[in-house]
């Protein structure tokens, strides 16, 4: 429990809106990162992360102060991203045939099984390639892999964030790793 955060939350609940800015500053990096990795698009990630903070603000009175605040925030953000991914899915297929040369943003448009030609993969920079491979993961695995390896959260916390049993988290991490292994082949 972070005493500063709890103090700020109490201030916000009492009507001091400006106290929320400290909360946003403290968690913006993590939340934005998760949204970016989930959605694979900078504009969308910014919008989603903002929306997550606004949602958290509106529902702040429902937050249980005995639990970890970051867990609660991560949950709002991941749910929001998964929602957006699912809503977007049909469009994926519509946009899939557009030849992509506009960099990162296009990977989020790809259908899950859509593959880029080998030579294009090789031209890709490491950071680009990482996001590309993450975007190819089914959203179930994507969330756990991001939380585990990019946010470096313990499995138990991931289980709390996604509200799924620890065993399920483990299974998804395993399958996520195997999926990435197959995607990467002999990189």
């Amino acid at each position: 429990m972070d005493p500063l955060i709890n103090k700020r939350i109490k201030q916000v609940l009492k009507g001091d809106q400006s106290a929320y800015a400290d909360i946003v500053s403290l968690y913006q990096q993590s939340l934005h990162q998760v949204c970016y990795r989930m959605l694979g698009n900078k504009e969308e990630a910014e919008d989603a992360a903002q929306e997550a903070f606004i949602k958290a603000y509106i529902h702040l009175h429902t937050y249980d102060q005995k639990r970890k605040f970051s867990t609660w925030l991560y949950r709002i953000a991941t749910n929001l991203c998964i929602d957006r991914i699912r809503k977007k899915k049909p469009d994926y297929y519509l946009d899939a045939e557009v030849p992509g040369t506009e960099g990162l943003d296009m990977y989020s448009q790809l259908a899950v099984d859509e593959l880029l030609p080998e030579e294009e993969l090789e031209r890709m920079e490491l950071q680009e390639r990482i996001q590309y491979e993450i975007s190819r993961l089914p959203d179930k695995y994507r969330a756990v892999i991001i939380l585990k390896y990019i946010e470096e959260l313990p499995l138990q916390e991931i289980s709390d964030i996604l509200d799924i049993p620890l065993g399920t988290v483990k299974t998804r991490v395993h399958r996520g790793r195997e999926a990435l292994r197959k995607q990467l082949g002999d990189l």
Partner: protein
Amino acid sequence: MKQCPEHVVEYMHEYLDGDISQQHEKELRTHLKSCDTCKEHMNELTNVVAFIKSAAAISVPAGFTTNVMHRIPMKPRALKGVQRFLRRHPMLVAAVVFLILMSATLFSSFNNSQQFSVTKAPGLIVEGETVTVPVGETIKSDLVVENGNLVVEGNVEGDVTVVNGKYMASTANVTGNVEEINESFEWLWYSIKNGVKKLFSTAD
């Protein structure tokens, strides 16, 4: 590869999760020493982890916090919940208040009005507590029968409502809605609907 025990891959993942037992770890190590396929598998998994972990931190767009603060709804907490609700839904609140006031009188009126009554309209035949619209007759208005039955053999150009009674029709021709109300709350609902309709039509 065929002779590899299936649990070896499972142990690999336990190892990567850092929650492998000593026994499993020993078994895994022994197997990897003697099996190139599994050793390769393990290497690939280790590389996958290293690959994902090498993702660089993404910098937050400039002005992020300010933008969030701008998008935040104005002081929602400053208003108490009830006040906020009243401000956001004035029409709904008006309707609810209206209904509460009405219902108090409605329940009592339902219980008190056990007597038979019927909308007056020329051409109706009333026998005891049964009202009949005879064959060939056309009633050009809404018809409400309370605590009695209605038999329609002719035509009704309007809505038909039977409260605490039975609606019977064989060759009936009713242009409006037919409604049977036999419960206190249904009667209330009926009155509310009509009340609301009136409320909104007078408001217009």
